[in-house]
Every structure is written in structure tokens, then in C-alpha cells.
């Protein structure tokens, strides 16, 4: 699904912040991406969802060399990747329902064809009674679940989450992680960037530890 070969990344003329990355992300796999703050977790995630290009090396995404992808091809690739941001990035002027439906609306689906799916998904993540609420009145956990619902509504093949439990209390963090585990059971690959060792202990999985630009993988 994802393959990194000898990948390095530097911003501008600065030092390399990611060095010699070699790894694969397999279909239906579950892994943590961990490391101290500033180690390069978010930069690696940005490489995953094609927000930035590597300074060197090869990144293969769904069997395509990322370096040869044209700009016009990126939207279709991105629809196969779900992203959950650390700061949720919900749009405050849209209801929870409209935020989640955004990905389907963006591909031109009429509301009549997606309404039932969105409502069902919101019920599944426990936001069935918050469909018409706006993000500013949602709690941190509710926002995070809405962001997860938005990321998975288009049935992505891989879900990338940047510190998804960083802004919620431990019980909510466990609840959110169970959602990711459930999504993984349903066939979605999951990559969670976190430094929450307690969660990793409770839900053990493959761990990609990044430190000072180097990556170590613990299966």
C-alpha cells in the first residue's frame, strides 16, 4: 500500500529531519507512529498524504511512484487516504452532519444518496444526537469523533491520525482508539501518530518509533 525506500526530507536548505526511511504499510495493518515532540512524526504524516514531497528517495503509494503523480491525480489518491488532524479542522459554520458529509459532497454526490450513510456513521461514532450541532458547542471528544467520521465516510483504504487522543481525557482516548481498532477490523489500514504510551500498552500493535529523523520498527 505504502512503501518508503531511502526517503529523506529537509525543509529548504536546513538539515535533514527525516533520514533513510525504509518501511512498508501493508493493507489492513495497524501501527503506531511514535516519538518525542519534534522528532518528525507530523512531517512523516505529511509525506503520507502527499502534502509535501521528499528531498530524496522513493515513496510508492498504492503502487504509484509519488514523484510521478500529476497534480490532477492527487485528489483521487487523497480520497483513498483518510486524515484525522490533531486540531480536528472541523468547519465551524457547518453542522456535524455537514462536516462529515463534506467528502461526499466534494465528489459531487447528491445529498439524497449519502444522507443515510452519514447518519448511520454518526450513530456508529456516538454522535447520533449531535447531527445538527455546530463544532463550537461540541466537546473535544465529540469533535475528534466527528473528525474521524469525516475521515472514514469515503471508505478510505488507509486512515492517518495525528495525535487523535491528544486533546481528550483518558476514557475518551480509549473510546476513540477502540473506534480505530474497529475500523481496522473492517479492513482499513490505520496509522496513528501518538506519544501516548499508555494507549500503546493497552492496544499493542506494530510501532514505528521515530527519533532524530531515524525510524525504528517494532513488530
Amino acid at each position, binding site marked *: 500500500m505504502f512503501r518508503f525506500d531511502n526517503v529523506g526530507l529537509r525543509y529548504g536548505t536546513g538539515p535533514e529531519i527525516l533520514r533513510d526511511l525504509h518501511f512498508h504499510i501493508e493493507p489492513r495493518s495497524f501501527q503506531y507512529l511514535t516519538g518525542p515532540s519534534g522528532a518528525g512524526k507530523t512531517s512523516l504524516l505529511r509525506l503520507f498524504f502527499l502534502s509535501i514531497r521528499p528531498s530524496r528517495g522513493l515513496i510508492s503509494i498504492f503502487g504509484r511512484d509519488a514523484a510521478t503523480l500529476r497534480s490532477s491525480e492527487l485528489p483521487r*489518491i487523497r480520497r483513498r487516504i483518510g*486524515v484525522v488532524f490533531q486540531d480536528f479542522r472541523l468547519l465551524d459554520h*457547518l*453542522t456535524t452532519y455537514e462536516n462529515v458529509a463534506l*467528502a461526499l459532497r*466534494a465528489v*459531487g454526490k447528491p445529498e439524497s444518496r449519502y444522507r443515510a450513510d452519514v447518519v448511520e456513521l454518526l450513530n456508529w461514532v456516538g454522535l447520533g444526537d449531535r447531527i445538527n450541532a455546530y463544532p463550537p458547542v461540541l466537546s473535544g471528544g465529540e469533535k475528534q469523533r466527528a473528525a474521524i467520521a469525516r475521515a472514514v465516510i469515503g471508505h478510505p483504504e488507509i486512515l492517518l491520525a495525528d495525535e487523535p487522543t491528544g486533546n481528550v481525557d483518558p476514557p475518551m482516548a480509549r473510546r476513540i482508539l477502540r473506534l480505530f481498532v474497529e475500523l481496522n477490523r473492517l479492513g482499513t489500514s490505520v496509522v496513528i501518530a501518538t506519544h501516548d504510551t499508555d494507549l500503546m500498552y493497552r492496544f499493542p500493535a506494530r510501532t514505528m518509533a521515530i527519533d532524530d529523523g531515524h525510524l525504528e520498527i517494532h513488530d
Partner: protein
Amino acid sequence: MRLLPGRRRRRRTGPAPIVPANSIAGSALMTVVAIMSFLACLTVGAVTLVQDASQNWQTDINREITIQIIPRSGVDVAASVDRAVEIARSTPGVTNVTALSDAQNLTLLEPWLGLGLDIEELPIPRLIVISIADPNAVDLDALAAELANVDGASLDDHRLWTERLRAMANVSVIVGFAVLSLMFAATVLSVVFATRGAMAGNQQIVTVLHFIGAEDGFVASEFQRHFLLLGLKGGLAGAALATVLFALIGLATTAVRSTPEGVQVSALFGSFAVGPTGYFGALGVAFAIAILTAITSRWTVFRYLGQVE
């Protein structure tokens, strides 16, 4: 159902717009668009007014031409006049031929030479006035060729004047287009700045749309629809204001038409009223500005997204 504090419950049939209308600094841009539209409509109105007036002058001038019989030694002026009148009357398209009498010639010269002039003492040309109903129906070149055989006769068909009038009208159209182009360019630049400002202000929306896999065209459409509406409102406001001004000027000139100044204005510009071309032109300018605004915002979004990518 909990809603945002202070937010009124809205009744709407479809999902809310992805780019909220109030996130675009619309009122300032709409004012700029309205002003540009107003000035552009005034330009269109002025150009059509000059064109119509020029057309009227040309038509009036072409409906009356003159034959001059210049008295020279050895030329029988009376015979030449008779011959020229005969040729003119036999020309197809000519409705009336009048040879001015000596008395009429003296009347014409009176403002310059005074009363009591003996016309026999001066080599004053004899004039034959020819009236034409349809200037296009008369072959002036053939008439001039025939008159060349008459001693002392020459045809003054005012072609020099009509050419100058036509040139002046063409210049006014070119100047009008140049002014319109400058106004459209200023509108485009204003829209470019406003769109970039709107995109910067809605960076969060653009980023989210980007990562959920929205095509650039979809993102552009979300911004474009606001700018189209904004351009349409501004364009129509400017056009409406210009139309009201045209109507007021028309009414004012009608009211003063009986005064000496009004007579002069009427002589120059006819009724000084902007015709249907001017009004339709104003409407066209409004829609052109709206479309231009929409296209410019779309193009700007594409460029912006291209740079982000």
C-alpha cells in the same frame, strides 16, 4: 438539537454553502464593481450618443448636395446652370433640384457683405441645391462625371465632412473601448485581490477540501459562486444608476430644448437621449462584469491552489 449560541435557526432546503458568504469581504468589492460598472455604462452611453449624433449629421449632410457654377470669362453661367439642373433632375434618386436665384444668393451673402450689393460686379458662384431622399440611391460619382462636362460646374457632395465625421465617430468608439478595457482591467485586479484575500481568510476550508480529495475545480466553484453573485449585484447596481442618469439627462434636455442653449445642444446631439443601444449596452456591461468577476475569481483560485500544491 443544540445550535451555536446566538445563531438563529435557519430554514434551508440544502446543505449550507461550504464557503460562507460573510467570510468574503464583499461590500467593499461590490462597491468597486458598482462604480466600475457605472463608469463603464456611462462610457457606453457616451459612445452610442456620439455615434448616433454622428450618424444623424452624416445622414442630414448627405441628403443635400450642392452644385457650384463658378463664373469664368467666356462662360455662359445661365446656360451652365440650366444644363446642370437638367443633369441633376435626370439623375435617379434626386427628389428636388433648385437653382438659387440672384436674390437668394444676395440673402445668403448679406451677413458678410451687407445690403445693396450689385451681384454682377462680383464673380459669385451660382448655387444649385439638390435634395436626396436616400443618399445610397444616388450615384454621386456618375453625377460628378456628368457635371464635369458643364462649364464651371463642380459638385460639392460634402464627402470630406462625412469622412471626417466618420473618422471622429470611429475614434470615439476606439477611445470608448480603451476606457472600457481599463475599467475591466481595474475590476479584474480588484477581484484578484479580493479572491486571494477570501482564500487566505478561508485557509482552513481550502486545506480541509484539499485533504478530503476535492478537485481544484470544486474548490474554485465554491468561491466562484459568491463572486458571480457579488459581481452581478455590483454590475446591476452600477448599470441601474447609469440608466437613471441617462433618463434624467434626457428629461433635462427635453425641458430646456426651447431655450437657445437647448437648440444648440439639439443641433449637435439631436434629442441628447441615449438610445436602446445605450440601455442594452449598460445591461450587457453589468452581465459582462459579473461574468468577468466569476471567471477572474475562478482563475485566481486555480493559481492559488497550484502554488499551494
